[in-house]
């Protein structure tokens, strides 16, 4: 009933296969794909950081350090499965195949969610903490009720587990037997609050016990174990085996967002120690050490990552004009008379402004 006291891992920080045999190592093509996506994700993340410093994004919460969780989780999803991400999970969304510009719509401030949740079977990035966990349970359970072969993966942070909604989500999932996997990215911090001020449980995976759900503790910087365990849990969920809680122990290398100042609450040394457990380095070491990747392939991946970044740079240069009238477009299925009135008011204001602009001598 209790999760393992130590995080499960398949590949250790030095890129060596661990002694753990409870899950098979994913096949080479999956490992290579995990690596490739992590390299691209890291590059994308760096690009987003740069755009933020240039003032092109309103805010950016970095995924740096958490690529193994996000990518391991997303690649484990089957074709009919759904994903419910948070604000932190840009790299997960990129990996999900969502247009990077649509991923950044929220953070750029053009609109709230930038992509079509149905097209990508992906909920909007969720900011009110833990609320998405309930949406995930609901959607999973709806699929179960319909008899569809669908499982759902929801991403949440360590801090989010303290919210009442996390508890209610775990409990509803257990009671309904909903096909949902809760992947907790325990990155050690909720903004400035360390895990030891958040919970006294031996691990967050232990929370599963109180719901009669299996809890798994994994090394969140080992993409192979995250993939394997989430894959397993999703399969089990689809087969009617109910929910699983997976805690992936990882680290947020950057500040909480660009607006944050981590020097106020944590040591550089802690960061440095975690850099030595980098998820990409270790996967690369494993792939190299086992002859699964060569320099040419690596260069190819890096070039692809540069291309993605260049594409983002390029496309983010274009102005993302949003028509003011859209303010009123999506509040109800049909605009209410009230909103029509207000839309007309704004339109008149804008027309008047335009007239004034034209009056200004050239």
């Amino acid at each position, binding site marked *: 009933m209790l999760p393992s006291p130590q995080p499960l891992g398949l590949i250790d920080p030095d890129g060596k296969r661990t002694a753990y045999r409870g899950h098979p190592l994913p096949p080479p093509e999956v490992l290579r794909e995990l690596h490739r996506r992590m390299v691209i994700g890291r590059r994308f993340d760096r690009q987003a950081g740069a755009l933020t410093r240039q003032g092109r994004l309103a805010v950016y919460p970095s995924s740096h350090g958490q690529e193994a969780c996000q990518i391991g989780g997303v690649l484990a999803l089957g074709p009919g499965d759904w994903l419910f991400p948070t604000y932190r999970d840009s790299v997960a969304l990129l990996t999900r195949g969502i247009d990077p510009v649509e991923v950044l719509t929220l953070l750029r401030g053009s609109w*709230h969610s930038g992509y079509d*949740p149905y097209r990508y079977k992906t909920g*909007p990035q969720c900011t009110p903490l833990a609320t998405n966990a*309930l*949406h995930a349970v*609901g959607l999973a359970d709806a699929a179960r009720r*319909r008899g569809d072969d669908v499982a759902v993966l929801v991403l949440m942070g360590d801090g989010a587990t303290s919210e009442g909604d996390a508890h209610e989500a775990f409990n509803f999932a257990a009671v309904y037997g909903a096909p949902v996997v809760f992947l907790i990215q325990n990155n050690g911090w909720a903004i400035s609050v360390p895990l030891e001020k958040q919970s006294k449980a031996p691990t967050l995976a232990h929370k599963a016990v109180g719901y009669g759900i299996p809890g798994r503790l994994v090394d969140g910087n080992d993409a192979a174990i995250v993939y394997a365990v989430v894959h397993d849990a999703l399969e089990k969920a689809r087969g009617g085996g109910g929910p699983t809680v997976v805690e992936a122990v990882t680290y947020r290398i950057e500040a909480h967002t660009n607006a944050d100042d981590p020097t106020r609450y944590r040591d550089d040394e802690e960061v440095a120690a975690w850099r030595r457990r980098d998820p990409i380095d270790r996967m690369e070491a494993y792939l190299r050490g086992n002859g699964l990747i060569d320099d040419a392939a690596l260069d190819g991946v890096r070039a692809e990552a540069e291309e993605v970044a260049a594409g983002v740079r390029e496309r983010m240069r274009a102005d993302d004009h949003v028509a003011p009238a859209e303010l009123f477009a999506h509040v109800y299925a049909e605009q*209410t*008379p009230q909103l029509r009135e207000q839309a007309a008011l704004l339109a008149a204001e804008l027309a008047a402004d335009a007239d004034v602009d034209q009056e200004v001598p050239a």
Partner: protein
Amino acid sequence: MIATMAAALNAALRDCLREDPSVIVFGEDVGPLGGVFRVTDGLAREFGEERCFDTPLAESGIVGTAVGMAMYGLRPVVEMQFDAFAYPAFEQIASHVAKMRNRTRGRVALPMVIRIPYGGGIGGVEHHCDSSEAYYTHTAGLRVVTPGTPADAYWMLRQAVASPDPVVFLEPKRRYWARGEVDPAVPGTPMDRAVVRREGTDVTLLAYGPMVQTALEAAEAAAEEGWSAEVIDLRSLSPFDDETVTASVRRTGRAVVVHEAQSFCGYGAEVAARVTERCFHHLHAPVLRVGGFDIPYPPPALEEHHLPGVDRILDAVARLQWEHA
């Protein structure tokens, strides 16, 4: 048929479940018990526990899972057991239910109904009698409706379930056992329109839900005093039917809005403000509000003093500066 409001609501849910396989009904005690007000009586038996079922005891969980279910194409109709017990779901309602369509640029609709028995007048103890409508009407993206008669209860709930927008459906507890004619064959007035319940020429009484009947009684009494009062049942609290209301007040030149909720920042404030904005030069007197006092809902021993009754409405009518007529 003649039915109580509770029975009319029950019939509406039954017909929705029958006609649309995507409708599901859930909440606390709505299954075998049939709800503490019996509004879901017999539904679990008739449609099975997969379509009408009891949830764990957690309102945020109920509403939050309903969001996910609606995203997947179901049409959840959830019950909050009493007004004040919807508050744990407030974040899900305000930040997701109301906003999902807007957040996703119109891509994700949430056709769902949150049924909330509300209001007092039933001798209920604390937390069982709140009039919480203003919390929802101030939240864009929600439709907020409340029936005042069994016929409206039936038809408005059917329309709410069919609506592509999320609807907060407020059920006036004290009217659950009131009887009236319900004809499931004759479609009702659209739920976003107000209805003139009684015609009059001197003053417009604006009421909804639990207070419609009281307003009608006040109009009766007013007639005896020589005032012809028009009574409008607002029905849709959000959006507001300006057309019907404005036409009436422009004609009568006087208005009183009535509700149980505390007056301060209550729904009546909006009604008074917008009617005044739109009818200012037709008004002989300010639009008056007759509402609950600005206090927490009182214990049963005192509720009669708190709740607006016929006398208090008549007093307000009397204060409408008839000398200026």
